[in-house]
């Protein structure tokens, strides 16, 4: 009986995939607007026009014909990122830094010849990273990891996931890369998820592979209790982003640049549910708190 009560309690608090799809995604996110989130260039365009901070776009290459000219025009920047507009799981992202001799190098310091870069862009256009559909290549500024995060783990860029439902920030987590995630801030790929106290912006415990942590498992640096820099601005930007799009349930991914502060990287219409384990709190429970006892959608 007790076990049954506990299970009922769990299903009262936790948002599962079925309910997420039926009550949060389908009624709130119009299908015909999905492209705004799936195509990162469309997302960025809208962010740019609303003056919501996001990495500078140096160039967008849509056809082979404009590859040469656009690349030449962006090659003057000392650092840049090349990524597919419709990529998934971090595939096809190339980070480049120009050394003092003017030679492009990737994150591990390996020399990358211009021909290789052009070939990579061509691959993006042909859809190698987007299931055979032709794609656009976005060339944008490179984010400098904020020192607060760099101290916890030196490589890659940590990233905040904010879940906004009907204008209310439901939950937030920080995703910190690990050795296993190889610099990527994706929980599926082994990044550490860290809960965030929404009021103070302080990090709570981290969750990875069925365990909670207060220190980073690879570096041993404690993060629990550390404040996320620019937290107020992060919340404000996330709200601005919510207002800029015709969606009412979305995940907003924000990184924090050492010099520029919070930058919106992308938005996600099917945000994952693991954030509940990370924050030790059910999304349904959270919605109910906010709505004063009533669960589910109740707009009029």
């Amino acid at each position, binding site marked *: 009986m007790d076990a049954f009560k*506990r*299970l009922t*309690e*769990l*299903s009262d*608090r*936790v948002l*599962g*995939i*079925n*309910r997420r799809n*039926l*009550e949060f995604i389908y*009624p709130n996110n119009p299908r015909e607007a999905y492209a705004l989130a799936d195509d990162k260039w469309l997302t960025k365009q809208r962010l740019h026009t609303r003056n919501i901070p996001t990495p500078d776009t140096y160039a967008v290459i849509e056809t082979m014909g404009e590859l040469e000219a656009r690349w030449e025009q962006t090659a003057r920047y000392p650092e840049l990122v090349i990524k597919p507009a419709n990529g*998934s*799981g*971090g*595939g096809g992202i190339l980070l480049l830094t120009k050394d003092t001799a003017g030679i492009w190098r990737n994150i591990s310091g390996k020399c990358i010849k211009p021909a290789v870069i052009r*070939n990579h862009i061509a*691959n993006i256009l*042909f*859809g*190698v990273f987007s*299931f*055979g559909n032709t794609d656009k290549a976005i060339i944008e500024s490179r984010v400098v990891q904020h020192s607060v995060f760099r101290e916890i783990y030196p490589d890659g860029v940590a990233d905040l996931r904010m879940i906004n439902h009907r204008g209310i920030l439901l939950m937030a987590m920080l995703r910190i890369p690990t050795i296993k995630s190889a610099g990527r801030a994706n929980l*599926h*790929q*082994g990044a550490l998820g860290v809960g965030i106290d929404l009021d103070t912006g302080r990090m709570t415990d981290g*969750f990875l592979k069925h365990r*909670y942590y207060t220190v980073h498992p690879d570096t041993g640096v404690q993060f629990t209790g550390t404040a996320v820099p620019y937290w107020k601005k992060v919340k404000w930007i996330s709200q601005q982003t919510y207002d800029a799009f015709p969606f009412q349930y979305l995940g907003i991914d924000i990184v924090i640049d050492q010099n520029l502060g919070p930058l919106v990287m992308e938005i996600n219409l099917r945000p994952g*549910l693991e954030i*509940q*384990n990370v924050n*030790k*709190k*059910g999304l349904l429970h959270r919605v109910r708190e906010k709505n004063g006892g009533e669960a589910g*959608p*109740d*707009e*009029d």
Partner: protein
Amino acid sequence: MYHSVKQYLTVERVTVGVLMIAAFVLIALKFELWGYSFRKILPKSGYEVHYVFHLEGFEEAVNVRAYLPLSNKHQTITNEVNRSGAFNLKIDQTGSGREATWQNPSSTGDQMIRYSFRYLGKAQQYRLDSTLVIAGNYPPGFADYLAATPNIQVNHPFIEQIFQRYVGETTNAVEALQSIYEYTHSLEPRPFKGLTDALTAARLGEGSCNGKSRLFVALARKAGIPTRLVGGLILEPGRKKTSHQWVEAYAGGYWIPFDPLNGHFASLPSNYMELYRGDRFLFTHTANINFDYLFNIEKHLVANPSLVNELRFHPFNAYVAWQAFETIGIPLSLLKIIIMLPLGALIVAIFRNVIGLQTYGVFLPALIAVASRETGLFWGLLAYLMVVSIVGLIHYPLEKWGILYTPKMAIMLVGVVIAFMTLSIFGIRYNLQTVAYVTLFPIVLMTITAERFARTITEEGLRKAIQLTSQTMVVVAAAYFVMNSRTMETFFLAFPELFLVIIAINLILGRWIGLRITEYPRFRWLLR
């Protein structure tokens, strides 16, 4: 908005209700108006019987002769398959039964002859008219059924003595048969496998099936009732070497079965397979070989053949399609596949949305399950694993060279096709005919989802990829067992309106917002 959501739910609930009721009404109508009954609809339990003969010859002509069963009102024989390698098979219809002869002009080394078929039997029970008189004159040719033979010593004095003591002179056929049956049945049963004649059985007061049967025949013939031995097999799952003999006595114009060993009076159980009539051997072979044999018997369910015949003229059942398919020569197995696919898809939907297993491809598990009908589940899963590993191996270099998606898929498809052809040829060469059916698998779909397996490895690690693959295989197995159930098959063939129920269940599943079972352990952290 909340109001309209509620309204929408009502519409959907009404739809579910209407579908369920429509299905129920149609099924009820069939029972009420068209004389359906569960006994007719439920599949019959039949057997798949394999004769397996091992021979070792030495460069000489060899032949082996055995009786094959014949379809009659007691038994239906279908799907006969001969696999005898270098041996030629010749089948002759003789007075005693269907005689198969396998011949090989020069047989050397180990050889195997296999013959298999499906058997569906019907139990028989005769009610004897107690006033039946032993007739004096019988149709021509019945003299043999009354005659003495070396092993059925009708006229021996001891048999005469036994006859007087246990049967006595009577003109009532049923009384005589009753006494003979009771006497022979009361003899001590003995598990001897060799031949026992009537006299020996009588003298020892005990007997095996053939001893008791011969004694029964001897006494019945003495009473003037035409009687003959019947040879056959008692079918039960497993391997066996023992055949069985019982008798048939001619009374009231019918051959009535009796089994004095196992106690069947004027009745024959459904699993008694008749093979021959008369005092014969089930098989014989030339003496120049080492010979061993066994009968391998598997139980399996088949659609009631009389139902198929009867229902094809009734409206609203898939047997109508059955007949149409038959007329234009489309294999019936295709019809069964099509009919069972929605059920398989429902199983997948339950596993994904209620249990919460993840699978590669939405309906791939159902398609693999249905394709495994011919190969068996083991080979089906093995074929799937094979595709996954081949694609995984090919994917690696192609991904590294940055090959575009569509050409990459095309190359993988070539790899999979080659592997399947090889497996088919291997199957045929090594006498694993069922394996050759792997070519029926949805190769393209398997390749596409296997590519996603390969991508999962790069994106989320090998562990996750293996986890997804094994969950896919679990769902394949579940779908296999449900879709290959003969009971389900006959139900869907007889009541295609069950499709409405499937739609209704899917509608309910599609609006179900509960936690999936696997989400309980996943979010157990929230309980503390």
